[in-house]
């Protein structure tokens, strides 16, 4: 879409020397009510470079959301290290925007007031115009005054996306943000997300169930194993950017999708040779 901005953005396939986020030996055990322990993550390592678009795919329940919640600073009780810009990660940050798996809108706030929530929390003034722009961007112009109860599931999720962008965070953490959308709206949102990420040089960490979506958007795709979650593959997507929807016809696109599909379907994924590193 915005080719001018794209030219300024270096193609990043592998993280540079100082990654924005560096995760080492990350393990997470959930205690359950019955006193059992659920090992959700096991010795995860991952780097995310500044400006990079990284996707995480994996079977349901493998620990993707857990990774995202740790990165968002919502879980503090884990083993291993998480560093942001080289410093130990401590709690939430206004540099981060999160879209959760559920929209989590406040039902007593209009769509516009929901988008403005970060401004209220972070005490930013005069954000109404920006909030309206963001709503228009997610295709909800004219719905500013609607309550969440009057919106469909997909519309609510789009309000949540606009909300996550309001305070212009440098890092976006997205947990299956488009899961509730129909295929066409999803395509539009994908193109839009690619444009935002490139234009404002955001770093994006995306969890998705759609392999095609991951390949279309990402510089790198991380593939997770079933629980306990480990990262079994790291696939650099070196298709040129910006990518239009017509890239789906590209052979390399199709090959990459098939490759990740096999990784997710097949057993003994760890034995497959890695191309990424």
């Amino acid at each position, binding site marked *: 879409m915005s080719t001018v901005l794209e030219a300024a953005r270096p193609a990043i396939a592998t993280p540079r020397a100082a990654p924005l986020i560096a995760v080492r030996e990350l393990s997470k055990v959930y205690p359950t009510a019955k006193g059992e322990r659920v090992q959700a993550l096991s010795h995860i390592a991952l780097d995310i470079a500044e400006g990079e678009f990284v996707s995480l795919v994996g079977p349901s329940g493998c620990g993707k959301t857990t990774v995202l*919640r740790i990165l*968002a*600073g*919502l879980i503090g009780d884990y083993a291993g290290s998480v560093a942001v810009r080289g410093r130990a990660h401590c*709690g*939430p*940050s*206004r540099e*981060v925007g*999160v879209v*959760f798996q*559920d*929209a*989590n*809108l*406040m*039902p*007593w706030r209009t769509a516009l007031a929901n988008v403005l*929530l*970060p401004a*209220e*929390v*972070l005490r930013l003034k005069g954000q109404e115009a920006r909030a309206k722009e963001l709503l228009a961007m997610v*295709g*909800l*112009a*004219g*719905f500013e005054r609607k*309550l*969440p*109860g*009057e*919106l*469909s*599931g997909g519309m*609510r999720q789009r309000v949540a996306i606009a*909300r996550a962008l309001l*305070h212009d965070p440098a890092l976006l953490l997205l947990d299956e943000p488009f899961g509730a959308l129909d295929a066409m709206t999803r395509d539009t949102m994908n193109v839009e997300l690619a444009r935002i990420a490139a234009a404002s040089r955001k770093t994006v960490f995306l969890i998705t169930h759609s392999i095609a979506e991951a390949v279309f958007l990402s510089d790198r795709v991380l593939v997770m194993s079933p629980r306990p979650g480990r990262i079994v593959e790291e696939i650099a997507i070196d298709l040129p950017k910006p990518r239009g929807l017509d890239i789906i016809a590209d052979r390399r696109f199709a090959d990459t999708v098939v490759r990740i599909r096999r990784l997710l379907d097949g057993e003994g994924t760890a034995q497959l040779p890695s191309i990424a590193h």
Partner: protein
Amino acid sequence: MWHSCARSRSAAGAQRESAALLHAARHAFALAWPPMLFGAALLYAWTQASARGWVDELILPPPGEILQQLSLGLSSGVLLPHLGVTLLQALLGFVIAVAAGIGVGAVIASSPLVERCFNPFLIAFEAMPKIAMAPLVIVWFGYGIWSKVVLAAVIAFFPILVSTILGLRASEPGRLDVLRALGASRAQEFRLVRLPGALPFIFSGINVAVVFVLLGSIVGEFVGAKQGLGTLILIANENLETARTFSILAILALLGMLLHFGVGALRQRLLFWAEPRTGSPPA
């Protein structure tokens, strides 16, 4: 595409609205005629029973006499100041109970440890009939309005406290995550998520409380007061003016309904989002 969708909805809306109004009127009539008919029959039977001397006038005076007492009380200006006192006591007690109930509820729900500390005492205090404190409260706060305000507030405090704690405990973790991810303070969490989310619960407590404040106000007046509808009832009763007693009871019933509707209006203003609507439930 989204624009046109919204516009066409409002255009067809006007027509649908008038049809809905007609439907609502029919519905209201269908609901209203049985109690109206029943009330009329009851009134007729009552009048007949009095006229034929089936019941003693001291026990059940005829409706006409009650009405007469009512208009006499209102026109002579005797009733109004007392009504004002009773209403004022109830309203002050209500405001205090709401503020204290939500405030203390917020403190108790703030941490499991605090809640565990308070819990046994709350249960004991809640189990005690607060009305029994009336003589004590009069000793503490005297014969003026404040003893009634306090009694009303104490009785109405508990339903609000309990519903506030329940509501705050039921906060949606997902909504809290949204705030926490932004680094919100606990005060912001409370103001932006917990309290509004607890409002539907709190209102169920308020519905009970609004009945209790009138109760507290009247009982306080029974035990010791200079003014108020409760004192008027005591005087009328001593003089065996049963019709006057009934006229004051009627006023109290109206007062109670007034307060109830007031709370209903407040609820509509604050809980517009929680009213059941068609379509999917709010996220």
